[in-house]
């Protein structure tokens, strides 16, 4: 929570949180998805307010937005932004393919041993 006060309210109700799906991670994902949907709705409401305030002040109206035509440069700039967005959102899926295409990552524990033990004298 963004806050101007130093008080931190408890965020979890006392009592075990029930889960409903066979895998509790699905419960957690669905809750996060709804929180994300909520934040999307907040943003959309803010845009709606923006349009209404602009119309009320005589700056531009919702119709101006509906009839706005994208020129080529704008189309391309948006396309680039979408690409970045998808890249970020699907990163965990697409990046995993790199391991398939290239050499698989080293076993992580082997790397830990490598950096932890590289000062040890090799046995003769």
């Amino acid at each position, binding site marked *: *929570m*963004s*806050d*101007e*006060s130093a*008080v*931190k*309210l*408890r*965020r*979890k*109700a*006392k*009592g075990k*949180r*029930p*889960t*409903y*799906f066979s895998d509790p991670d*699905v*419960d957690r994902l*669905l*809750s996060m998805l*709804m*929180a994300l*949907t*909520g*934040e999307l*709705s*907040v943003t959309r*409401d*803010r845009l709606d*307010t923006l349009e209404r305030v602009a119309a009320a002040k005589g700056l531009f109206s919702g119709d101006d937005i509906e009839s706005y035509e994208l020129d080529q440069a704008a189309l391309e700039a948006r396309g680039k932004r979408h690409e970045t967005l998808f890249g970020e959102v699907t990163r965990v899926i697409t990046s995993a393919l790199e391991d398939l295409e290239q050499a698989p990552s080293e076993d992580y524990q082997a790397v830990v041993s490598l950096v932890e033990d590289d000062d040890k004298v090799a046995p003769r």
Partner: protein
Amino acid sequence: MAASFVEQQPHDALPKTNHDELARQHFVRSFKQHLVSAVHPGLKVAYEKRAKVEFVAEHQREPENISEVGKVMRKDPHYQAWSCLLRTSQEMMWSSAQIPVQRSLANLAESAQHHTNDHGSLSLDPSLVIPAYHRAVDIHCQPGGYHTEYIPSDVAQGAIYDRGVYIYAMGQMGRDNADMGDSTVAWLKQEHPDFEPTKILDMGCAVGHSTLPYAESFPNAEVHAIDVAAPMLRHAHARARAKGLPVHFAQQNAETTNYADNSFDLVVSHILLHETSSKAIKNIIKECHRVLKPGGLMLHVETPPYEGMAPFETFLFDWDSENNNEPFWRKSHTLDLDELARQGGFTEHAPLQLMVPSAFQETQRTLTFQGGDFGGGGVWFVYGCQK
């Protein structure tokens, strides 16, 4: 269907919300509305077409109680999704109400102490022991419950509850969340037009949503209201003063109040009994009897008992008991209420158990209660007795 998107009646004790904080609360309200109107109806379909079919195939008969319905419904994907979404909506509701309160808590607590009028009173008892049935889990999943205090003279839990209940009810309990009090008062005025109480007690008043209708409708009566939670009472007092209504709020346990014997004409509570315990509910009825004048009236507003409900409907109605921190919900809905009244000393008159229509005209009278939408039934169950 819920009432149209009418906003809560603003008052000085509520925090000011900024644009996005309000939008977040509106989302939760719409989310809940969607669950009620678009997701909840699918539960019946899932039961009839899938869960019940499975049960019948195995047992050659239909489920006969909530335990048998639960056995097959808990495995049903639609029930799982609905439950997860409903629980999530409840958590998001509290969160959306917490955000503006946390941001402005110091100011809220400060301004609650300063008023432009001196209506009513507030009497707190820091030595009061918060009962175990109240402390064990946070009721309705409100983080911190009713009683947690973060700063001196704290009002956080009350301010959060005030707003949270409005979002919960989706406006169906009126702009002041007053429907339970309003409906009971309307019933009293209709059934007992000559009843002129001079002293009224509201037990488990929280922020006084249901208390103020009595102060409004019986202006000649002295209205008292008690709760165990100090932050609720501070907010309740500030709210009542903001609305210019005189109520005497006191931090007391309804099981053992400090009021004199035979001192009230009317003792009421609103959705208090199901938040207590087997022992406490008996104590509360006894206490009602003790403080009532002979001929006085006890009225407890609740949701209706399970008796007579079909197993599937009962299973859904029971959802809160295991999923919304309502540990006494199930037991309290299956008690022998007539016997409870007799044990409490109400032996002169027959106990009342009746359905009272909602006073809030915009409410659609669905006459059903469902998890996540207890304000939408259009009727309240009233249990009581004359002393």
